[in-house]
């Protein structure tokens, strides 16, 4: 009986051995994987150019220090530590970190493990001379991202080592790999990264490389990443960043016909070269603590009241809905007055029809327009229905939802709808409660990108292409969603009146500061009240009027009047783009604006105090 058990066990084990050793190729393949050495070859990451072919981001060799723990015998540790500028304790701590299988699951004392990534050039040159003395240490070359210019940090983003969560999400990555973390480095990661290659090397029992397995039949060449050409015009971007120096806010310019973003400035910005190499983590933390939030891309993540730039969208809605005709004139006695209610306005002749109302940015006109729309019970059964109609127009113009630009973290802004007000006021609300949305105040919030896109829609007389910052993926294609044409609910003929109004604004209205331009520029100012103190200064425009090449939004936080910062900066930007350069007088003006800084100290101090008291509570 016991003998029988013994025979059965041995037979079962022989069968298992036969399965493992003779039949199953799986384990043989795994053994190949393991016994043979897979040498990963990293592809070069795609290079990034601006729309005129200027190289913006490229790769530079960098060196990682690798260690094979098993070969460390006889290492002069003290000498090594001195060379590396580390203490004995740091060395020991790092080694035990490497050997901890929980933190470093692939650890083997016989294979190369990362001791330190991205040696500085200085460390590398010192180390290289002495490396022969440090048995067990090896250099692995990698590449790091280099930035040719100090501009465009928010759009470009950066790359950094993958986190365990990234590896979990996409098994392509292995510990020590790099991936895009922000900006287009992140949104175009799949194109930029290329594909890692591998050399399957044969090792003998001593771990020595014997050559390629099956003459390299299983080797895979790395596929280099795809190069990107941005739609950004670097000169325009550089001017924009100069003009925004010392100011919070954003400038976004779009080519109306294509939706290509020509520049995207967010102030304050930073020099992308600061994030190169090992310093990235430290710098990121520092900038994260800065109360002015330089890491925030205000062009797509800042949501602001659009102020009077929004009136254009109102005019279009009222025209299409038949609430007004171009000839309709509304009274304005220094504002919109009804009973005891008043929404103020500046002094101008009244009553005005549409075109001059836009040119002079008459608050009364648009207040009355919305009032008549919301209270029109022949067209809409309830105020809710009127409000919903209004909201649909706004959404068709690209407000209230993300536009879908090819950058991460875009915000959607806010367009209130009927349920929103029902919730806020009960059903007990009327046209007067919401009247300020007609002049781009109240609950309405747009991103500078959405305001610029409004400019593009008007320039195109009724449509826009999804704005995007990448013009071309070499050897690839842009996503269809970036080339989609979105038509608004307003017919082109009505757009002509708005264009006319915006042209008049430049010629003799609120945008007179742009009248000097040698082409037909159109514009609309915005002066937006906000809870942060002084009014925000905004400008939305496009040029030339009949064959628009550029649509633009300038938004300067706490810049007071639209005409103070918005108009002159917008004018300079349009001049730069259309003429390719600034005239000498404009150059002098640009110089002056570059050095005209706005103080945000009082505001940030107040906000920090508020936050502090909030957290204390």
């Amino acid at each position: 009986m016991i003998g029988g058990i013994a025979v059965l066990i041995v037979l079962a084990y022989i069968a298992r051995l036969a399965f493992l050793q003779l039949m199953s190729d799986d384990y043989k393949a795994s053994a190949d994987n393991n016994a043979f050495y897979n040498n990963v070859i990293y592809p070069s990451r795609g290079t990034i150019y601006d729309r005129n072919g200027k190289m913006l981001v490229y790769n530079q060799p960098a060196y990682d220090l690798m260690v094979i723990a098993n070969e460390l015998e006889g290492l002069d540790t003290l000498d090594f530590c001195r060379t590396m500028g580390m203490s004995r304790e740091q060395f020991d701590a790092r080694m035990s970190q490497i050997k901890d299988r929980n933190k470093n699951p692939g650890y083997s004392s016989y294979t190369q493990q990362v001791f330190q990534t991205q040696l500085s050039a200085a460390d590398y040159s010192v180390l290289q001379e002495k490396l022969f003395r440090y048995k067990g240490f090896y250099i692995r070359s990698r590449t790091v991202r280099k930035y040719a210019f100090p501009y465009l940090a928010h759009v470009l983003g950066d790359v950094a080592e993958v986190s365990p969560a990234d590896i979990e999400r996409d098994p392509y990555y292995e510990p020590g790999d790099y991936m895009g973390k922000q900006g287009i480095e992140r949104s175009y990661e799949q194109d930029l990264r290329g594909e890692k290659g591998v050399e399957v090397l044969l090792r003998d029992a001593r771990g020595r490389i014997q050559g390629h397995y099956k003459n390299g039949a299983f080797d895979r060449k790395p596929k280099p990443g795809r190069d990107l050409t941005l739609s950004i015009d670097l000169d325009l971007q550089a001017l924009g960043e100069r003009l925004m120096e010392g100011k919070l806010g954003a400038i976004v310019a779009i080519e109306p016909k294509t939706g290509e973003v020509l520049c995207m400035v967010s102030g304050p910005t930073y020099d992308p070269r600061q994030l190169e190499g090992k310093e990235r983590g430290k710098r990121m933390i520092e900038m994260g603590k800065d109360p002015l939030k330089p890491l925030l891309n205000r062009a797509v993540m800042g949501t602001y009241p659009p102020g009077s730039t929004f009136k254009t969208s109102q005019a279009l809605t009222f025209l299409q809905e038949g609430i007004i005709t171009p000839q309709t004139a509304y009274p304005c006695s220094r504002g919109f007055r009804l009973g005891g209610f008043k929404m103020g306005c500046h002094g101008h002749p009244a009553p005005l029809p549409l075109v001059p109302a836009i040119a002079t940015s008459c608050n009364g006109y648009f207040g009355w327009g919305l009032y008549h729309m919301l209270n029109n019970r022949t067209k809409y059964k309830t105020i809710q229905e009127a409000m919903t109609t209004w909201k649909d127009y706004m959404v068709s113009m690209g407000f209230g939802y993300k536009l879908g630009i090819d950058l991460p973290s875009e915000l959607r802004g806010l367009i209130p709808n009927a349920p929103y007000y029902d919730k806020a006021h009960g059903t007990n609300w009327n046209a007067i409660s919401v009247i300020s949305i007609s002049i781009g105040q109240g609950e309405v919030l747009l991103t500078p990108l959405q305001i610029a896109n409004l400019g593009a829609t008007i320039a195109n007389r009724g449509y826009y292409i999804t704005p995007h910052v990448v013009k071309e993926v070499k050897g690839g294609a842009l996503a269809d969603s970036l080339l989609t044409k979105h038509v608004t609910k307003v017919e082109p003929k009505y757009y002509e009146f708005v264009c006319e109004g915006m042209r008049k604004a430049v010629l003799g209205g609120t945008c007179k500061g742009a009248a000097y331009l040698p082409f037909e520029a159109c514009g609309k100012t915005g002066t937006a009240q906000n809870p942060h103190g002084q009014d925000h200064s905004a400008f939305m425009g496009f040029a030339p009027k009949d064959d628009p090449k550029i649509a633009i939004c300038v938004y300067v936080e706490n810049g007071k009047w639209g005409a103070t910062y918005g108009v002159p900066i917008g004018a300079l930007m349009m001049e730069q783009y259309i003429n390719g350069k600034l005239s000498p007088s404009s150059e002098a003006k640009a110089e002056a604006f570059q050095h005209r800084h706005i103080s945000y100290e009082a505001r940030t101090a107040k906000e920090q105090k508020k936050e502090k008291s909030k957290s204390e509570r």
Partner: protein
Amino acid sequence: MNGEKLNETTNKGIFLSLDWWTIILYLVLLVWGWFSVCGASYSFEHPDLFSFEEYSGKQLVWIGTSVLLAAMLLFVEKRFYELSAYFLYGAMMFLLIVTIFIAPDTKGSHSWIPLGAGIKLQPAEFAKFSVALAMGKFMSRYGYELRRPKDFFTTVGLFIFPMLLIVLQRETGSALVYLAFFLVLYREGMTGSLLFTAFAAVVYFVVGIRFGEDMIGQMPVSVGEFSVLLLAQFFTLGMTQVYGQQWSETRLMLYVVLIADVLAFLFSKFVIPFDVCWVLLAVVVLQAIYLVWLAVKRQSWRHALIAAFALFSASMFYLCDTLLEHLDDHQRVRIEVLLGKRDDLRGAGYNVNQAKIAIGSGGLAGKGFLNGTQTKLKYVPEQNTDFIFCTVGEEEGFVGSTGVLVVYLIFILRLLKLSERQPDTLGRVYGYSVSSIFLFHLFINVGMVLGLTPVIGIPLPFFSYGGSSLWGFTILLFIFLRMDAERNLKRQ
């Protein structure tokens, strides 16, 4: 003067009647084992296989001393063991108890006593022979009756006691080896139903844990629970037939079981889905009640015991989960990995997976002596000791590893044959103990390397590196060979 002469002739006779087959197999395993230790520990930076700095050199010392020890043991008469069996047992138990308190922490276990000069001793490896001797002596007592509960439980206690002590040393693996003594008891007349119950418990455990969270189709029924209860029903049926020998009773039970199960299953599948297991559980309880009724009616203990078996079986699924929760984390993970519930190739499953890869890569003829890349590059942990069979598999391939298994099989079968030819209970019990211990080690150690049994850290005799285990097995074996050589001597 006369006595002296007698001794001389006896020793001469002993030499002639020694079982040389076993000794040759022992030597073959020793040499083969040494080459495997070389393969597993060889490092190209230190190529001297005979250097005492290396495992291979040290193992050579252990082998040499083991052979010496073996030769010396051949001069110790069986009578000595007969007289001192209990004393040896007591001394070893004392050593085991002392070890719990004085042994320093070695990877969480308190079973190694440092002797200085870097040499450590593991008393658990030496205790086996004393337990076997004590059992043999106790069972050869006049009037011993295994089936008498008092005798049975005392015998079981003889090996459960050291087992508990070793568990207290946190060497659960070594402790489990003592379960091999149940095989000896079986040979000596213990009822097979106990072994069957143990077997059934293992099956319940494996099935219950493995499929506990799977569901049958769209029904709210756990595959594991369902299977365990179904097995419980049919095992009970089988035992009722085998031990009751009344087909009419078994048939009645069979019909009830079949009808109730099928009806419940169909009702759940086509009418209202519910947890069928409640019905199955009720059926098992019904079976138990029926068996109790039969026991009372017939005044039969057997039926009462089968009823107990039925209830034990039914509770197994629920016990399994509780048991699993009370295991240490690393033990639970090992079991879950083995049962395929976890696929943790970087963590607990790492050893076993690497072992399988190393063996699989050996192919038919292996990669050759010292050419195993898997083991050389240290992908396999513990490859000198518990995972030594990997090296055999990788360097010697299917041919070599099958060879080792076959030699082992012959070795064990030969020991069983020797045990059967013993003239007395002491020799037979001791012989079966030796065979069962070797079989258990082979079963668990090779099984774990092949991914068939849980990872329990016990050595492969004569192959795994280490002095304690080699000495322990040598002592175990050569006491028996000397006993066997005395088989033809007339007893005074």
